[in-house]
Each structure stands twice: as structure tokens, then as C-alpha cells.
């Protein structure tokens, strides 16, 4: 199984892209979403990258929207990165976190557990640190080609990785 990634500068755009993939029949069990969250006071927020005000959104709203598409959302404290949230198939990759991989940060998880190229993984970690959102689609070559076409046509991504 291969993976492609698409980078978005806001939660809404990423969700819209997920919905577009779902509508086109791409299996939602092969989709994942990753973003960064922050703990302020006692509340967890997600920071969007695309508004000048960088309006904070409560994790409750985001998780609620995601759960309309994918069946699970995870929120993880990663040393040196902060709080990440992930949804979908990628949650399985995070299961290893408890075992100690957490210390290696997000790039290690993406390369070791999701099977991404290390250079790509480091770049995606940077995107996450900047408050961007990444969609991962996994599947065979024809599926990923289709996913790329859908996401290109949808047109909201900052970057879509080649297969």
C-alpha cells in the first residue's frame, strides 16, 4: 500500500477535501488527517494557518466535523512538537506511540509507521509545526492516481505529493 499526502492551510479546506474524496467513492478507511493542536489554559484548540486573525477553534468542533467523515480522532502529546491530532487510518500508526516511538517525533512516525520517505516526513513535520493540515490517502496505484486527480481538481491544496 502506498501513501500520498496533500497539505492544506486550514481545517475547513482539509475537511472539504476529505468530503470530496468520500463523495468520489474513495474508501474513507484509507484516509487520514493530521494537524497540530494547542493547549491554552485548560482547553485544546486547533490553530488555522490561513486567517490573519488565526482564530482559534475548539478541538470539539473539529473532532465533531471529522467524525462525520472518519470513524476516529486521536489527540496526542508529542515531546518537542506539542499536541497533534490525527484521524482515520493513521490512528493505527499512532498506536505504537505508547511503546515509546513518541520520543522520535512525528517524522519518525511518518517514516517508520506510515512508510513515508524520510525527507518527505521531515517536510510534513514542518508543515504541521506551521499549523497546516495534512491528508493522507493510502491505496494501490490506480486508487492514488484517482485521489490525486480529485484533489487537484478540487484545488484547495497547497501541495499534493506524487505517488
Amino acid at each position, binding site marked *: 500500500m502506498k501513501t500520498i499526502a496533500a497539505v492544506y492551510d486550514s481545517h475547513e479546506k482539509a475537511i472539504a477535501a476529505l468530503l470530496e474524496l468520500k463523495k468520489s467513492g474513495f474508501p474513507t478507511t484509507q484516509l487520514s488527517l493530521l494537524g497540530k493542536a494547542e493547549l491554552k489554559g485548560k482547553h485544546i484548540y486547533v490553530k488555522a494557518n490561513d486567517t490573519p486573525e488565526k482564530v482559534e477553534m475548539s478541538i*470539539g468542533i473539529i473532532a465533531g466535523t471529522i467524525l462525520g467523515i472518519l470513524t476516529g480522532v*486521536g489527540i496526542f502529546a508529542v515531546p518537542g512538537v506539542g499536541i497533534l491530532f490525527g484521524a482515520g487510518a493513521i490512528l493505527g500508526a499512532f498506536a505504537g506511540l*505508547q511503546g515509546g516511538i513518541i520520543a522520535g517525533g512525528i517524522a519518525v512516525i511518518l517514516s517508520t509507521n506510515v512508510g513515508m520517505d524520510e525527507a518527505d516526513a521531515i517536510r510534513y513535520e514542518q508543515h504541521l509545526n506551521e499549523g497546516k493540515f495534512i491528508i493522507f490517502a493510502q491505496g494501490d496505484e490506480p486508487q492514488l492516481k484517482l485521489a490525486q486527480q480529485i484533489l487537484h481538481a478540487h484545488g484547495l491544496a497547497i501541495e499534493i505529493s506524487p505517488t
Partner: protein
Amino acid sequence: MIVGVYASHDKAIVALRKLQESGYMPGQLSILAKAELVNNHIHVRPNDSLEKAEVSIGVVAGAILGVLPGLGIITIPGLGLLLGAGAWIGAFGGAYLGFLTGGIVAILTTAMGIDETNGKKYEKHLNEGKFLVFVQGNEDQIKLAHDVLHTLNLHLDLDVH
């Protein structure tokens, strides 16, 4: 394994903290509860307040992340939303891959090794808005954890399996 049943997330988190102070590792501790989607927002509803005031998931998640490194919220057909943290996340990974259709009892029996009768009892607790705290370890650790939680005395129910 020990399963403690608590009426609110506050009490469950106090119990987790107490266990952490007593030397238990995050990989040995888990918390499980039901969450609700109200107007696009996820809440948990504690069982112990008269008003049953809703608490935003952001607050609960923040408190949990102070003790455990991760938490998950998953959709379970027929049950609604389930919030879990700690060693449970591993079970969630599996849940996503197939246990999900079996519901919470299947997860409890398959992933946590709880028998079906108790699995059903805990499912009922979850449906009533209670919070479950799990401790895993060797015999000595389980015995000590039982003493710690028993002394803390915030639980509704405390089982050793």
C-alpha cells in the same frame, strides 16, 4: 487488571494522577468514557452532577493529556462516541481495523481480555455516562493499585480481574 468505575471525569483523572504519583507508567493506565456530539461540538456528560452539565471535550482532553500522552475519540455503531486514552489507544488501532462493528463489548473482550459478562456490565456503565479507569500490571502492581484506589475512595465500583 483493575477496573475502577467513576461518576465523573474529574474523579477518574484524580485517580489516574494518584496512580501516576505511585509510579505507574502511562502504558499501564487507561481511561474510557462516552462522549456526545451536541450541535457539532463534542461533550462528555458527567454522571454525578444534578444538572448533568456538559463538559467540552477540549477541557477533558486537556486534563487527560496532563497524565497520559494520547487520547482517541471513536465512533462506535450503536453506542455513539467513545473517548479513550492510555494503553487503550493501541486497542483503538485495532478497533479501526475491524473490531468496531462488534461494539464496545467486543473491544473489551478482544483487546483487553475482559470476559463477556463484565464487558456487558462496563458497557452499561459507559452508556450511563460513567468513566472507567483501567490499570494493567503484574500481580504486585495490581495489588498496590487496588490499595491506592481503594484508599482514594472516589470510585463507584472497583474490580480486580
